[in-house]
């Protein structure tokens, strides 16, 4: 018994890819519904902020240089999209599969173990973030708001960002007693990040304590990275943001698996 309790590290084989296959098979039927938002959303946002708010703000200072407001927020929209895709996939969609459809129960009676199922689900959330990012980048490119080839690095970054928010989401999925409770993490975690991660205005305009707090939020680092890549302005300091996202996803990934085992293995 003691041996098993110490064994908290995820036990994962490449079998987790079976979950990706299963989910992609479902997506082949529903892709229209899943990927319409990443195509339409940036158009709506860019219209609203570009034609509406943009007329008031016009320019904003980014690293000492003035950039148009639309160019400032376009990368943030990509980062938010990465967050949303993975987070909603691994909260609501995963919860439905786990709780209502009992899909995990059925798979746990096969050679796959729970760790692999959860890994497959989280990686799937990241894959969805990645696909949505490619679609969204295609749309934003029409507005000439991305600097290539640097912006291409946003694609692998989207996968890492997907792992970050998918793992956090999976922790909530392991904890919530019922599906309505997801409103709490959305209200207390996602919405504040959406607003206060350097998305629509520079962090420097915030009071000092809020700036420090913002550094804890993973979206702050994702926005910083996506914005730098989109504008083609890479610098060494970004490596810290990348490391932060890496360790954040590793930590929450292990936590998600431990919490899921506690919930489902009884």
């Amino acid at each position, binding site marked *: 018994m003691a041996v098993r309790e110490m064994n908290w590290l995820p036990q994962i084989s490449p079998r987790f890819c*079976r979950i990706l296959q*299963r989910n992609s*098979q*479902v997506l082949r039927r529903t892709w229209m519904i899943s990927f319409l938002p990443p195509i339409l959303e940036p158009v709506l946002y860019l219209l609203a902020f570009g034609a509406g708010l943009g007329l008031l703000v016009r320019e904003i200072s980014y690293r000492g240089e003035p950039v148009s407001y639309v160019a400032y927020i376009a990368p943030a929209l990509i980062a938010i999209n990465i967050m949303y895709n993975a987070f909603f996939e691994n909260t609501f969609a995963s919860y439905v599969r786990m709780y209502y459809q*009992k899909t995990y*129960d*059925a798979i746990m*009676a096969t*050679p796959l*173990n729970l760790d692999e199922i959860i890994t497959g689900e989280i990686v799937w959330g990241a894959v969805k973030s990645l696909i949505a990012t490619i679609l969204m980048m295609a749309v934003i490119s029409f507005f000439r708001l991305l600097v290539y080839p640097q912006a291409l690095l946003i694609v692998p970054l989207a996968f890492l960002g997907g792992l970050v928010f998918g793992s956090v989401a999976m922790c909530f999925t392991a904890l919530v007693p019922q599906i309505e409770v997801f409103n709490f993490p959305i209200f207390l975690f996602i919405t504040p990040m959406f607003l206060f991660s350097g998305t629509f205005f520079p962090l420097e305009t915030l009071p000092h304590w809020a700036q420090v707090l913002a550094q804890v939020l993973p979206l702050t680092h994702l926005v910083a990275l996506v914005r730098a890549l989109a504008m083609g302005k890479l610098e060494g300091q970004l490596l810290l943001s990348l490391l932060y996202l890496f360790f954040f996803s590793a930590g929450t990934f292990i936590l998600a698996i431990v919490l899921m085992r506690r919930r489902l293995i009884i």
Partner: protein
Amino acid sequence: MVVVCHTVVRRIGGCRTVGLSRPTADGNWLVDLNVAYLEMPEPLIFSKDLCKTFNGLKAVDGISLRMSRGECFGILGPNGAGKTSTVRMIYGFSPVSSGTLKVFGMDIQKHARLIKAKSGVCQQENNLDPDLTVFQNLVTFASYFDIPRANARQRASELLRFMRLEHKEHAKILELSGGMQRRLVIARALINKPELLILDEPTTGLDPQSRHQVWARLAELKAQGLGILLTTHYMEEAAHLCDRLVIMDHGRILVEGGPLDLIHQNVGVNVIEVESPSESLLKFVKESDLDHEELSHRLLIYTRDGETLFGKISEGFCDRGCSLRMATLEDVFLKLTGRELRD
């Protein structure tokens, strides 16, 4: 002198007896018992003092059982008896709290993945994948067992035919009736050609037609030599399918044996039921020391010699509502687990 030796293989109570035989002078064969030895087949499932505790509750409290290959073994019990907890440990879903549990001779705690690869499981809820079609359900499930896609498609078609579902190949799960869903769950459990099929209440909630359809398919599988472990609270189902069964309650095994043996050992051959028994009959029953049960407005008398006793009772004590019937597994079940509600 030429001595012809034959290896004799006989089945005695599920065990293979292997010995050497030689011809005798009078033309008979003599089995040399000195060289005969018992070759105990490795049990499919073996458990000893198996326990499962969760939330401070002992759901399974020291179960020891042994199930052979090719056998249909039943676990019966009222709701909350520990049936599902037991099978969930057997198919590697729940960790064992204490005791030994081996499936295919392998320790479930060390070789869960191997054991699961060779088992087919039909859980209590219909957890088919509603996001996929009937055919996709089978093929996708096959992928979890690393079955190559071409094989999986062929096997899926075979199983749909076997389960009489071939016309529903492209249907969505929610379009299927309860009976069809259940058959599809069983088909799915067979996708990996398992050596052990575990069914947790396979026919709960089905109409009689569907239930008999499922039984017919299970009987066919059993005839092919598949080992089947079944939990149920339908006595008819257990009597119909099981070679051997246990009745469980409060996490423990109460009795174990073949369905008929259990009936004969615990309640006899016949049951005489009397509606609103008279005082004189009750007195007679008690004085004759007959095995009986008094319910409200009803008396049950368990007996091995139904005809004679029934004659005596129906003539002497009964004016209405008195009947003689064969004893069933349900009588055993109710006698052992009591009649009070369990929810």
